[in-house]
């Protein structure tokens, strides 16, 4: 070594001292600089709406409205023909379509399109685009979630006719309300449209893609939108790390719209000043059961008496208070929404709505008449096997995890042992697909229109299920009842406007599912949306639910955004 260690060290010691001082000063300066609140626009600039959809991983860019990996743009960039509001019995609102009608047989649907609409790249929107989109869906099974089986043809630039082989009234809402129209001139050359990655979307909607980063992407208002440029000029969607991060960001005032559990909900207006919350009952929380031994299900839950006992033993009031902050509401064993569908609930049901108080005595009576006897540890048993069940939940679904644990404690009072298992999302989906579960805490979702047919078709029809080991449709309980299948068939062929004709099949379905109870009703979930009322006005409220106010519901979220205005404060 030419330099001595001492020399080297002396030098670096001085060097170290000065660099350390410099670093401290630099950090202090940067910290002071960073203390400015970020994201606050300059005076006169329109405020950005910051939304959090619950995205817990980084965004991967894809604005293909058909791809399972899409991250947004449905409703904001791309539009449907009509908008169906599922929370109220409203008439469909015209979007790209201005009116539609069915022939009496339900085999032909005629649609009139809106005129004067252009794509965001300047091309005119015509019937050819609609026909192309529908044709593409018909050809690609991966895109055809709604089961569309029609043939579309353009009568002229503004009229489209779709013909079906069979009466297809119930398929209408999915075609009219959930199909996003894409431009033929941009999509005709895409090789695999079901999964293609679309980085620069061209749509007819009120917004355009502004910029994309994995942690957030931004949409900006479309000045050439046919409905007029929207008042909210920019929307930013954030990716955080989960519910907790969302709540923290909300508290810091960094998010303007979030849908999901929020701590201390009843004091929202106090603890998050300027914010309001709206709770909308829509999805129905149930315990999925693998109920059909004939299709391969195994376990005590295949016995309807056990399912009924669980139904009786749950203390819904307590569950609502402890796990859902009282945002839940009553649920009907008919799975009709007690609000929207009140008129349809059959008088023949034993409980029009599930009892909010538990009836442990009744539960125990049911078990005992099914051959169970109480053991010395307080748990029922039959043939030497204790009545022990597992319920699967998804890690990260905080409210469902708490609910499952609470239900477990409640069932223990009645003598049923429940173990909660937390799974990753993939394992969860896998369990449902294979039928390798006993109970799962889950929710039943609504269809594309405010019509109970969809819930029944998705979750109770034999066509939507499969035996254990094979992949089913939404009917994961493996429930199969020929009478219900027949009633569903009748409903499919009946014009939804004909209330009288629908009454009998609906009644059959309701009474039979209350007896069988393949999905044990728990509560109707109140979807909690918290929004920054002081910054933007025009939000849907409980009195005026013009759309389902969930940030993740397409295209309702676009409906909300289009009606918002900066409050100017």
């Amino acid at each position: 070594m030419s330099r001595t260690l001492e020399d080297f060290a002396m030098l670096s010691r001085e060097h170290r001292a000065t660099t350390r001082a410099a670093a401290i000063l630099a950090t202090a300066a940067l910290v002071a600089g960073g203390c400015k609140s970020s994201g606050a626009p300059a005076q006169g600039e329109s405020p950005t709406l910051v939304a959090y959809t619950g995205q817990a991983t980084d965004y991967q860019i894809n604005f293909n409205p058909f791809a399972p990996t899409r991250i947004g743009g449905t409703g904001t960039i791309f539009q449907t023909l009509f908008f169906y509001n599922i929370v109220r019995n409203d008439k469909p609102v015209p979007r790209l379509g201005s009116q539609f009608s069915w022939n009496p047989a339900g085999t032909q649907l005629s649609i009139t399109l809106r005129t004067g609409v252009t794509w965001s790249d300047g091309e005119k929107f015509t019937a050819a685009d609609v026909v192309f989109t529908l044709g593409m869906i018909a050809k690609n099974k991966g895109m055809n979630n709604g089961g569309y089986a029609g043939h579309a043809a353009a009568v002229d630039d503004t009229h489209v006719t779709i013909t079906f082989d069979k009466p297809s009234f119930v398929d209408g809402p999915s075609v009219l309300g959930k199909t996003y129209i894409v431009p033929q001139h941009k999509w005709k050359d895409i090789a695999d449209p079901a999964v293609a990655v679309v980085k620069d979307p061209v749509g007819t909607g009120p917004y355009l893609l502004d910029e994309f980063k994995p942690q957030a992407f931004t949409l900006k208002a479309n000045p050439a939108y046919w409905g007029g440029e929207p008042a909210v000029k920019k929307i930013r969607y954030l990716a955080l790390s989960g519910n907790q991060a969302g709540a923290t960001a909300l508290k810091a005032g960094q998010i303007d719209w979030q849908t999901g559990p929020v701590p201390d909900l009843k004091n929202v207006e106090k603890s998050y000043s300027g914010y309001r919350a709206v709770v909308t009952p829509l999805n129905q929380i149930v315990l999925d059961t693998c109920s059909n031994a004939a299709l391969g299900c195994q376990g005590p839950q295949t016995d309807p008496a056990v399912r009924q006992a669980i139904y009786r033993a749950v203390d819904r009031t307590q569950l609502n208070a402890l796990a859902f902050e009282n945002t839940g509401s009553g649920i009907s064993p008919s799975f009709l929404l007690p609000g929207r569908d009140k008129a349809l609930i059959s008088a023949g049901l034993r409980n029009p709505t599930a009892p909010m108080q538990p009836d442990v005595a009744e539960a125990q009576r049911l078990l005992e008449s099914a051959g169970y006897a109480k053991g010395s540890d307080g748990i029922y048993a039959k043939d030497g096997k204790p009545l022990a069940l597992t319920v699967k939940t998804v890690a990260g679904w905080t409210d469902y995890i708490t609910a499952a644990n609470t239900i477990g404690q409640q069932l223990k009072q009645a003598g049923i042992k429940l173990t909660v298992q937390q799974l990753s999302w993939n394992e969860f989906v896998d369990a449902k697909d294979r039928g390798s579960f006993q109970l799962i805490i889950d929710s039943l979702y609504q269809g594309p229109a405010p019509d109970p047919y969809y819930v029944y078709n998705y979750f109770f029809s034999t066509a939507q299920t499969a035996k254990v080991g094979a992949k089913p449709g939404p009917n994961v309980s493996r429930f199969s009842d020929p009478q219900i299948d027949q009633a569903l068939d009748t409903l499919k062929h009946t014009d939804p406007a004909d209330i009288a004709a629908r009454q009998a099949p609906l009644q059959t379905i309701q009474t039979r599912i209350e007896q069988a109870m393949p999905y044990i009703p728990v509560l109707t979930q109140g979807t909690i949306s918290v929004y920054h009322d002081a910054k933007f006005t025009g939000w849907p409220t409980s009195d005026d639910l013009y759309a389902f106010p969930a940030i993740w519901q397409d295209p309702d979220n676009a409906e909300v955004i289009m009606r918002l205005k900066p409050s100017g404060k």
Partner: protein
Amino acid sequence: MTNLSPDMLPAEPGNGLRNLLPRWSAKLAVGSVLILAITLFGLAGPLLVGDPDRIDNIGLTAPGAGHLLGTTQTGQDVLAQIAYATRGSLYIGVLVGVLATVLSVLFGIVGAYAGRAIDETFSLFSNVMLVIPGLPLVIVISAFVPPERRGTWTIALVLAITGWAGSARVLRAQTLSVRGREYVLAARVAGERPARVIGVEILPNLLPLLASQFVFSVIAAILAEAGLSFLGLGASSSSTLGTMLYYAQNGFALQRGAWWWFVPPGLIIALFGCGLALVNFTIDEIVNPTLRRPRRPIPTVARPSTGPAPDTGDDVVLSLTDVSVTYQGERPVQAVREVSLALRRGEILGLAGESGCGKTTLAYAITRLHRPPAQVTGGSITFHDRVEGTLDLLALAPEQLRAVRWAKLSMVFQGAMNALNPVLTIRAQMVDVLTTHRPAMSRAARRARCAELLTLVGVDPRRLLSYPHELSGGMRQRVMIAMALLLDPQIVILDEPTTALDVLVQRGILQEIMRLREQLGFAVLFITHDLPLLLEVADRIAVMLDGRIVEYAPAEEIRDHPRQPYTRRLLDSFPSLTGERGAFVRSGGTS
């Protein structure tokens, strides 16, 4: 002087247990109380609290009547949950601790004992496992285990497998050191079976270390398990402090400000770890006694000096008058009793005596290098400077003393093995003397001076760039001498300068010293047990016994007419080359 490094245990064959018991101290008290309290809480708590799983409509409530630590989101009693969770965490912690310790004993102790190939392999394996990051590995393994199979024992096994390597390395190092000790070799030669040798001779000496490593494993296991559970990857059926924190996060405890839910679990882990760490401190102090905290600081000078001795005018450069040095403690020991000496300019004064008579203590005390519990309890030490006049060394302020040291009075220590700083070059260690005492010297001048002095003592100046470990013993001693002469001191104290060297080198060094003394004119205080040697080199000799000077006379007088019987025995004790052996009995007392 011996130095107990952490690598060396005061090990005795199989009987060191008394040495291994801890001394009482505040740290041990607090640590033990914490550990006992929390362990008791974990063991007995669940028997006293209510049902941790019972839900209640009251929901999330702050601490108050009925629920000392409040309730969770579902109305469960936090105190009850903590008791059960503590038990769960302790159970896993101890389980993993035991498993990990067994593994580390196997790979560390047994491996090191077996030696050669097995040791190399085990050691390599331990080091590799040590270096591979633990938690990511645990996460990956846990992720592959399906949730139904993720039981307490599986998790414990995974944690143990990833946690034993650190302990193994430490135990191996210690075993290697103990293995070479005489009593172990004796046992092996006597034919004892390896298992018995390990069990009886080696393990007891490693007990404190083993205890410390076990403790460390337990803390690490509790922390790792808490982290795993917090991430949702822990044992599915168990309830530990980590699981509690997981549910607290799940229930938005942080956002709701429910401090009573998320603070106590972490606090318990922290306090438990703290308790274990404090106990570990105490174990450390057994292994390394220098860590023990001094009871109260003992000043090095007990009472003001009796004043400098007047300049008697007959060229005395250092006068010691009635100097006493005591080792304070429960039973104070007087190492130096009223010693009076006078060192004249340019003379060689020999100080002779057997080991333990206090001569080194006296030498250190001269420039106040002695450390507590040694204390100068009487007398005065006066330096008669050529330039500055009389200096009362015991009364000097620290900064003045520092300036005097080495510049006026330097020392060459006994056994230069460790007297040189191993991480600095020779030049650096010599130059820093010059930069401190002669700041005005230029760099070139400093280097020249160092080279000059090395040449003077017979060492090649190219050795300036070497490190101490690159030099032989003799060379190191010469370097020490060169260093001592850097500032042209008036006195050089030599403490057994040649004892650790072989005879021929001894001769060479002594000749150098004599020559340098002739050349530079400094006085020498030559401390040694080798009285015959002093007869050859010293002008006057003082014989020390039990802290007192028993004979003090010119060298010829001592050689020809030793007055004290002790002196005579000292003279006779050394073997001569002709084969006559003296019969020296180490009694140090009356003959």
